[in-house]
């Protein structure tokens, strides 16, 4: 068994011909919290979907627990996904189910536990995200940040081995942000899981992750532990860590020259 529970080898992927990832290599060792950072639209969400097997790579492969994801049949894919939990960028709570039922959903689908035990599990997870009191509410009655925390509770309901978080801090106040950082770390260590955190938030992230990958324009441009990266003088990392608009990270979606376009008018 390899030490890396998830491995991405020379992965290329694109929507409709335009290549988004051009040969990405990453590895996620068991028990670690690894962050993937990069500008908006750099394909981070897409990368998580590739790990989850919802998209097929154009070239290269993603290996989860030794198995090549895109070579799995339906059954194999479902078995792999049973090891994963994913927090979606926009929560993706089931709007026809209450908060309680949302968190209970994966437990009900995959186990035959009695109701009393399901209740204990659900309340435990909701308590961890500070929303035990909200278990009766419907998703439409939650704020964006609350919905995201419920989604987090749902993602870890079955104690997965791999937990993927798509922007867990977006829309959270500084207090909840600290709580969520702590939670991700604690869950990871308590479950012996591996966490993949997609985020833009440099300072919060650097405070609790073990390793960081920076992606830009389809490739990994920098990687290392937070300490190594803080000291790094690579222009890219410097720009990102200090939030500067000018630098190697393009702010614009690829487009033709603006001035030329205006002149052509």
């Amino acid at each position, binding site marked *: 068994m390899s030490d890396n529970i998830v491995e991405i080898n020379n992965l290329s992927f694109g929507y409709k011909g335009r290549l988004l990832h051009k040969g990405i290599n990453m590895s996620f060792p068991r028990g670690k919290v690894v962050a993937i950072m990069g500008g908006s639209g750099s394909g981070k969400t897409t990368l998580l979907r590739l790990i989850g097997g919802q998209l097929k790579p154009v070239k290269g492969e993603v290996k989860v627990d030794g198995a090549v994801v895109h070579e799995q049949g339906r059954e194999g894919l*479902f078995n792999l996904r049973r090891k994963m939990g994913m927090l979606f960028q926009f929560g993706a709570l089931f709007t026809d189910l209450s908060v309680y039922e949302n968190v209970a959903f994966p437990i009900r689908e995959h186990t035959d536990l009695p109701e009393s035990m399901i209740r204990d599990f659900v309340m435990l997870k909701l308590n961890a995200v500070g929303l035990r009191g909200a278990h009766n509410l419907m998703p439409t009655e939650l704020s964006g940040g609350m919905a995201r925390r419920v989604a987090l509770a749902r993602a870890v309901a079955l104690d997965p081995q791999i937990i993927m978080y798509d922007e867990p801090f977006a829309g959270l106040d500084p207090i909840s942000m600290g709580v969520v950082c702590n939670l991700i770390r604690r869950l990871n260590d308590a479950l012996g899981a591996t966490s993949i955190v997609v985020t833009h938030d440099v300072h919060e992230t650097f405070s609790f992750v073990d390793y960081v990958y920076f992606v830009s324009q389809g490739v990994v441009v920098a990687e290392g532990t937070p300490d190594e990266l803080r000291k790094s003088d690579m222009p890219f990392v410097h720009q990102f860590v200090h939030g500067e608009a000018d630098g190697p990270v393009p702010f614009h979606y690829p487009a033709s020259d603006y001035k030329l376009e205006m002149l052509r008018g």
Partner: protein
Amino acid sequence: MFSSLKSVIAKIGHNFIEGVWHLGAGGRLFFYILVYLGESIRRPSLIVREIYATGVLSLLIILVSAFFVGMVLGLQGYNTLQKYGSSEAIGVLVALSLVRELGPVVTALLFAGRAGTAITAEIGLMRATEQLSAMEMMAVSPVGRVLAPRFLAGVISMPILAALFSMIGVLGGYFVAVPLIGVDSGAFWSQMQASVDFREDIVNGVIKSVVFGIVCTMIALFEGYDAPPTAEGVSRATTRTVVYSSLAVLGLDFILTAFMIKV
């Protein structure tokens, strides 16, 4: 001139290919749903919930419509029949029209408008808000968990709704014919009993409504599942559900009737 002709032909060809592609995709989805049917039957609570959403909530509109349709049949039928001096046959006319045709067909049309659109919009929105994606990532098949129970609920609800439609329609016809017009109540019922055949009329009507149930529910499910994940995409899909369901019901009704009637 030539190029505009060419573009017309290209457009027709494009629409045709698109149509065939859709039919294929729909067929594939139908197959997947059938595969998950067994699993779904073992979770009756999910089906009951959907029967409530599709069947029970459609009851009111269907029963009210049925009563009015029955009353109109009574009036029109009496108006014609009395010219031939056979106004007691009004019961037969009302019952046969309802059981054979209007029950299954009008129920299916109302069902497409009331329940079909709701199914399409709900599933389309579930896709747009990534709920179906989230389900897949939890190793739960949306086809098994979301589509199959709704399919079963639609197929179960439709014949029951159609039967209720016919029943209430007959009562509507009775209400006009007997208390209002004064046709003999005994003649109304006895002629009806004598002329409505169980095999020929009732069973055929039920067969029709089962077929309509399968087709209407399948169209609603497919359009929702296939809708582009945007507000516009979902609204267009909802419209398509009504249009395609109505056309399919009326077309299939002709075909089924042609097979059922011995000329």
